[in-house]
């Protein structure tokens, strides 16, 4: 018995040793090491002689990572995707192929996951591509990858992605905000869309949802807007671009994006208009800047911004101590600047409208912007189905003045209202008028009422 126990003890100790070695072996042979080995062989093929070949092959394996501290992201994709920044890898097999058309978005500064999605922290293929349980953002398919541009380029037209511009336009004009909150503004009937791009929903789901809301989420209160296939795709692009993460501001705070918008900001900040003019608009003490990028090369302009006196002896222009990207941004702005820009910068807008017109115009804009049109229609016609509400649909607002005073309408906008029921025992209608007093100021609400009344007048006259 005692001898047997001793034997068992030694056997178990040996087993423990084997298990530790097995765990160490498992830890020491991750798949990324195999990829790195294959990549080195690929690189070694190009080497002319045996010595350099051996030197390449002797490169020790290591994790490559891009740290984006402000975004809480660590992208280790380049541990396997080793050729993304190497143009000689243009025709290499994946995962080593060169990434074309990156422009300024170099992986070393931007990482990969902000555009592609996936799990940057991971070091094996399945987990990294995010097609595993408990990772909300798998890789975006090629078809939708351009939607990611909108995560940073939140305003204006994004070159090469007309879908985004169109999607945003649809969102703001079709009244989506009436039910959905985005960046803190909007109704609460539907889900908040602020972080929609980071949710688990696939592009396919979104697209089908826009075409027929009830097909993918049964019992959804969302009306069918009868979007075309293209519109559904545009909206899907926009949804995929929505994120809580402050990506754009992160990168512009790092001054990584030399965009014309950033250039314009600098142009205002540095008060260039105090000396320069654009197309004759502005001060005349320094050269006019319209078409300046055509008269001089980019390099010349850059040099001029670094050290004005060196390029133009005796120049009165001060040295602004601008970073490379800031100079690029300024040049980018100057390439597209128009006299209207100069006018806008100088005057900060002054239009000739009567105070009433301004109020009505502002009301109309609010009515669209805060999503009232989603239910009440772009022409106040109403008509969106709302089962078991009186009349079975959202009421038209064209005859408001017949039933309500302006004060009553103001109160309804402020406090919201549940529509009267068609059948008292029936289900609660899915749509209702939310309370707006926390979202809109009294002034905003008054303007909306002004706008509504401006429409009433016409109807009454006709009647």
């Amino acid at each position, binding site marked *: 018995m*005692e001898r047997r*126990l*001793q034997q*068992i*003890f030694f056997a*178990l*100790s040996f*087993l*423990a040793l084997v*298990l*530790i070695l*097995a*765990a*160490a072996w*498992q*830890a*020491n042979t991750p798949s990324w090491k195999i990829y790195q080995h294959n990549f080195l062989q690929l690189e070694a093929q190009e080497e002319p002689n045996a010595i350099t070949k051996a030197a390449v092959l002797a490169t020790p394996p290591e*994790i490559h990572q891009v740290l984006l501290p402000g975004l*809480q992201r*660590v992208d*280790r994709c380049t541990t396997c995707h080793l050729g993304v920044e190497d143009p000689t890898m243009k025709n290499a097999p994946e995962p080593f192929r060169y990434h074309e058309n990156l422009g300024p978005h170099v992986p070393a500064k931007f990482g990969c996951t902000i555009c592609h999605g996936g*799990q940057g*922290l*991971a*070091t*094996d293929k399945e*987990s990294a591509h995010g097609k595993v*349980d*408990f*990772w*909300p953002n798998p890789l975006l398919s090629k078809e939708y990858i351009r939607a990611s541009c909108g995560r940073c380029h939140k305003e204006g037209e994004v070159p090469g992605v007309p879908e985004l511009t169109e999607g945003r336009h649809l969102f703001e004009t079709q009244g989506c905000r009436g039910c959905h909150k985005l960046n803190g503004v909007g109704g609460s009937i539907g889900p908040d869309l602020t972080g929609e791009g980071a949710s*688990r929903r696939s592009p396919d789901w979104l697209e089908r949802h826009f075409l027929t809301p009830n097909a993918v*989420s049964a019992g959804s209160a969302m009306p069918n807007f009868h979007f075309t296939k293209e519109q559904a795709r545009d909206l899907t692009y926009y949804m995929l671009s929505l994120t809580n993460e402050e990506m754009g501001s992160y990168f512009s705070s790092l001054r990584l994006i030399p965009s014309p918008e950033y250039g314009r900001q600098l142009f205002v900040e540095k008060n260039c208009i105090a000396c320069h003019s654009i197309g004759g608009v502005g001060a005349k003490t320094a050269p006019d800047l319209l078409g300046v990028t055509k008269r001089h090369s980019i390099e010349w302009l850059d040099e001029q911004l670094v050290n004005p006196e060196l390029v133009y002896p005796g120049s009165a222009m001060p040295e602004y101590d601008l970073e490379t990207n800031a100079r690029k941004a300024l040049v980018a702005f100057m390439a597209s600047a128009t006299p209207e820009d100069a006018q806008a910068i100088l005057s900060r807008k002054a239009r000739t409208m009567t105070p009433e017109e301004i109020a009505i115009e502002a009301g109309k804009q609010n009515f669209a912007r805060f999503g009232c049109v989603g239910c009440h229609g772009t022409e106040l016609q109403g008509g969106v189905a709302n089962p078991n509400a009186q009349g079975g649909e959202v009421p038209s607002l064209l005859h408001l003045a017949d039933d309500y005073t302006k004060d009553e309408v103001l109160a309804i906008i402020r406090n919201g209202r549940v529509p009267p029921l068609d059948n008292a025992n029936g289900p609660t209608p899915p749509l209702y008028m939310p309370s707006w007093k926390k979202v809109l100021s009294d002034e905003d609400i008054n303007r909306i009422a002004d706008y509504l009344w401006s429409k009433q007048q016409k109807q009454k006259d006709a009647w």
Partner: protein
Amino acid sequence: MNLIREIWQSIVRRDPLSTDKGKTELVFLNVWLHIHPAKVKKENLKFRHTFYLGFITFFLFLILVTTGIALMCYYRPYPPQAYQDMKDLHFVVFMGPFLRNMHRWAAHGMVVCVFLHMCRVFYTGSYKKPRQFNWVIGVMLLLLTLGLSFTGYLLPWDQLAYWAITVGTNIGSYAPLIGGQLRELLLGGHSVGEGALIRFYVLHVAVLPAAMILLTIVHFWRVRKDGGLSRPIWKLKDKNEELVTIGAPAQAAPLQAAAASKDKTYGLMEVVSGKPIFETVTAEEEEDTVFSYPYAFVREAVVLMATVTTIMTMSLFLNAPLEELANPAKTPNPAKAPWYFLGLQELVSHSAFLGGVVAPALMVLALLAIPYLDRNPSRRLGDRKWLLWIFTIFVVANLALIVVGTFFRGPGWALVPPWVHVVGGAE
């Protein structure tokens, strides 16, 4: 050569292990081993008496301390870095997953083994006089084990952790008057957040382990001082045999207090008188004992290695779960407490106050009071039928509730058998 021998002898002062004196000194002169007696009863070494569950629990605790300290090197207890550290552990730390798996499985194993150990002690009646207080210490150690497991559950800061702790602490808040404040004290706020994470971390790595170590020392000490392991029930003599429990045999002459001599100094051994506590001390029992070395030690070593290899094997093949980053805005349906509290959650789903406060409080009080309420001195199974039934029902009911809570509860806490897949449960 002489120097080597001198060094060796400066470390090991005992006689060779081939002699009885050496075997005794091995125990006496070694600070780690002297918690053992030099000789143990053969019957107490029997596997089917204790199943070595106490040892297994202790060894699991050692694994937890070792792996836990290693894990502390890779962990920052604030969100969301805590979660990122989990991912790093998984993807880039050498043997990181193995380390975390060992910690996780040993923790679950410890909860199970503490419970089984308690059951063993109950069924063998080993909590009876003079061991009542050690049972009480044992119940505290059970509670500490649950506390350690519960606080550790939050640290990965994923959805699983976040919602399990939210549900778990909500159960606690049903306590009348102090429940809400207690929860707030524990969480450092009204909901699980940064404050809760740092508090749980401090409890998990400092406060609770310290309490655990202190009480474990007392627990082991009392095992010795209360007369060593209880004897197996199949060895119990007939009912009427007198058991000598405390101090000298009952019929022995009372101790004489002699006047101390003025010119003599006394060692401690001469001051403490009377025999040590044994349940039964008879002449023939001397023959039933063996030296701890090697009989007890080799068995303990086998159990240690069996425990370690089992946990290692599990850790090699089973990965500890890690879900999405904790998201207070996204409640999973259903949100479940850690499995050992799912019995409680199941009760709470029927009645928050009865299930969340009254039932667990009564359970703990009943466990603590068992050795004092059970006045029956007999440890024979035949003499304690009622109590055995009650305890068995208690154990089975607990297990049944945990099984129902774990496997049979779906979205909205509706009764769903595990083989039915709920469509759209996550939406």
